[in-house]
């Protein structure tokens, strides 16, 4: 264990992320109060039902309006410990704000995400001691992976008085919340600041640069069996694996990069520059593809999403597509990649694509598109090896960890799991909601209630 410290490293250097401005900047007090006062304070509100973590939104908004910002933060965080980042990264357009009754009235829905961010940021800046942990129970839980599911779970376990130890193979904690969020929504420092707060809630350790493996071979590896021995319970917040590949000719070599890998570098790697990149093709029709194309477009690169289905088949959110298009991103539908084109020294020059109908290639319709960069955003692999190293933990056909949906307990009675590795890749707020269910079940087991 090389890194044993609750200290979280800073990100340094001249990272491209800092070039981006917030699309939804933090509210000033007067803005927040004016927006809060618009809320009707609905009964049995549809926004609450639309929130995976069931935050009592009308109540926290009313509290902002009365100047009770600390109470607002308490209302939010008691349901969702990552309430601040969810305020920034949640697709509120399809969740809470999308359900706001104002939509029926053809009026602007309440800016719930911005209000939520405001309440938590302001309250925690004034007094981070918003919760007190219960008396120590002596129970110890290991959490594998430091993404949103594990961080939220660790925070709640700590508040119950348990000892939580998070094992993360990367040097920065937070998973996609730290390294995968579009920089105009949230920056690395903001994600790390939130994690620092969650880790301060109670007895939480963070082991960075440590990988969990079936059999330990080095000091930077810990075996699954030793975790099961040393701890009273284990939580798997594995997230997803590396970006999937296109498996087409010319893909190997410079100029072709996985989408999440590129976003991670854009956010945290001070050496990344797009020198000589004028045109980029982003392959994929989902939200990661939109994010990458949008981020590249904002840097002045001619970025085109390439998707084999039709416009109506795009799985990316409409509001994200619209926002990206406003910033210059293009979308080219009914095209499928055939090969990455390179010149005689292997430098990328473009991509050969073929037209599709019903997502199937139409023979003889190949065309060559110019590109200096190809980003592959067609999904991520699963962390099957780590999951399988815990006896009794089973995976479904798509590589997802199988859990009891009522408890998020796996086939191994000491192991729980939540987040992307279970749901196949959803929002931060889903990971938090699932983690909360898992913690409730773990806590009952650890304290000998209904286990």
């Amino acid at each position, binding site marked *: 264990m090389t890194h044993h410290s609750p200290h979280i490293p800073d990100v340094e250097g001249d990272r491209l992320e800092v070039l981006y401005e917030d699309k939804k900047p933090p509210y000033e007090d007067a803005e927040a109060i004016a927006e809060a006062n618009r809320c*009707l304070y609905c009964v049995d509100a549809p926004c609450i039902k639309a929130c995976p973590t069931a935050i009592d939104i009308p109540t926290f908004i009313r509290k902002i309006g009365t100047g009770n910002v600390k109470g607002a933060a308490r209302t939010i965080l008691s349901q969702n410990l990552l309430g601040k980042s969810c305020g920034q990264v949640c697709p509120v357009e399809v969740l809470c704000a999308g359900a706001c009754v104002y939509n*029926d009235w053809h009026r602007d829905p309440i800016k719930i995400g911005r209000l939520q961010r405001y309440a938590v940021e302001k309250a925690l800046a004034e007094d981070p001691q918003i919760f007190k942990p219960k008396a120590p129970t002596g129970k110890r839980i290991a959490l594998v992976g430091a993404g949103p599911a594990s961080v939220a779970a660790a925070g709640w376990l700590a508040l119950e008085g348990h000892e939580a130890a998070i094992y993360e193979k990367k040097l920065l904690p937070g998973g996609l919340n730290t390294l995968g969020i579009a920089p105009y929504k949230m920056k690395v420092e903001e994600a790390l600041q939130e994690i620092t707060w969650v880790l301060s809630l109670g007895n939480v350790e963070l082991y960075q640069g440590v990988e969990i493996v079936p059999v330990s071979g080095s000091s930077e590896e810990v075996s699954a069996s030793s975790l099961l021995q040393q701890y009273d319970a284990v939580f798997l917040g594995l997230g997803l694996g590396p970006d999937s590949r296109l498996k087409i000719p010319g893909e190997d070599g410079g100029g072709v990069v996985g989408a999440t890998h590129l976003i991670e570098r854009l956010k945290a790697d001070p050496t990344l520059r797009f020198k000589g990149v004028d045109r980029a093709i982003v392959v994929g029709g989902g939200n990661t593809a939109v994010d990458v194309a949008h981020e590249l477009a904002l840097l002045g690169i001619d970025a085109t999403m390439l998707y084999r289905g039709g416009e109506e088949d795009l799985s990316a959110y409409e509001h994200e597509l619209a926002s990206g298009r406003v910033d210059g991103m293009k979308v080219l539908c009914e095209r499928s990649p055939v090969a990455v084109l390179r010149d005689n020294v292997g430098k990328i020059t473009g991509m050969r694509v073929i037209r599709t109908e019903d997502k199937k290639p139409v023979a003889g319709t190949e065309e060559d598109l110019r590109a200096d960069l190809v980003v592959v955003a067609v999904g991520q692999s699963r962390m099957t090896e780590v999951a399988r190293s815990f006896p009794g933990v089973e995976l479904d056909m798509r590589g997802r960890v199988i859990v009891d949906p009522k408890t998020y307990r796996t086939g191994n009675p000491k192991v729980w799991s939540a987040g992307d590795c279970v749901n196949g890749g959803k929002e931060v707020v889903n990971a938090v909601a699932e983690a909360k269910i898992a913690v409730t079940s773990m806590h009952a087991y650890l304290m000998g209630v209904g286990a």
Partner: protein
Amino acid sequence: MADLSIDFAGIKSPNPFWLASAPPTNTGDQVMRAFDAGWGGAVWKTLGNPIVNVSSRFGGIDYGNTRMMGLNNIELITDRPLEVNFREIREVKRRYPNHAVITSLMVETKEEWKEIIQRAEEAGSDGHELNFGCPHGMCERGMGSAVSSEPKVLREIARWAVEFATKPVIVKLSPNVTDIVEPGEAVLESGAHAISLINTIKSIMAIDLDRMVPLPRVGNASTNGGYCGPAVKPVALHMVGELTRHPYVSKLPISGIGGISNWRDAAEFIALGCTSVQVCTAVMHYGYRIVEDMIEGLNDFLDSKGMKSILDLRGRAAPQYKNWGELDLGYRVVADISTDKCIGCQLCYVACMDGAHQCIHLPGRTEEQARKAGHTHIPKLIPDRAVTARGGAPGARVPFVDDDECIGCNLCQLVCPVSGCITMKEVPSGKPNESWNDRVQRGADFVPGGLHVTEVERAKR
């Protein structure tokens, strides 16, 4: 185009819209700009022996995003020399001979009243408004509202004014009394020509919870001020109504004051019996320019009702202001919620459950669930009506009114954010159209379930 001009106790004005005596009528420059904007008259900032003012002076109360629903002030009468004021009045009257300039006055002794009335008339004042209403500062010196609360003193001073004045005398009343009829009758007895009301209401605007000092704050202390603005309009309408239904006081022209912010407010005061209306807070908030809409709106309203002049509207609603005992106990309305307009916020539901009679139901509940939620009467059928507003949220259900239990209180309609979504339908009540007074008359003023002693006493009678 209706005729908006008025004759108020002999004071002519091109329209009924006057600026109340307050900061907007502090100087000649201001009054002339107001007349240019369209105001028909101005009651000059109260004249008297100059005083010294404090800083700060105003406090506001907001509700939600609405700023200055109410305003209070601790400013006193004019702090400028009388001669400066009279010179400016003279100039205003010279340039605007057809507009009404009324001098608000406040002094102490009979000799002072005599001098100030004469000097005001020499300056060209069209009439005098005796400020018996100011509820802060001046009342501590025996003037302002201190006079309104002593009908005898009021009558005495008003008599002096009538004696010294050749122009109409208007008495401005304070609302800070138990019964407005008492000072109203005193005005009538004094021989004064008209009444204006209400002046401001004694108030403390708020408390600064960090400094522990009331607002508005002057250093480390505050004092009670005069409350005005949209929030006081219902209080003002009631006091106007008390006088305009009085068999004798109602003969005096009344200038209505209190929260009037637009043509509709003005029309309401006129319908209740006022001849002119006075405006202050709305002008302090938005400027003289608001009068353009007031003139246009009142004109169009009169046209739409086929009324030719202010006189046609004046007092039309006054006879319908009655005592509770005269109201029809057989009249009944019940609430009706439109599925086309409902947005599913369910504010009507919670208001009815906790603040009214538990007669609004949520569809899709079992009887057990409804009873657990607090319903004691379950209708036979609760239709499962979905919101049909365009783009309605899937799954949103329209609350349902149990007609049998609805007592027609209006609360659901009042809390509904969507105008026109909840309407109150007239329905037969099955009860005779009679009032409580009618029931007293026929000896039916007994409701079972009361005190034993009352029943015993009743049996003896």
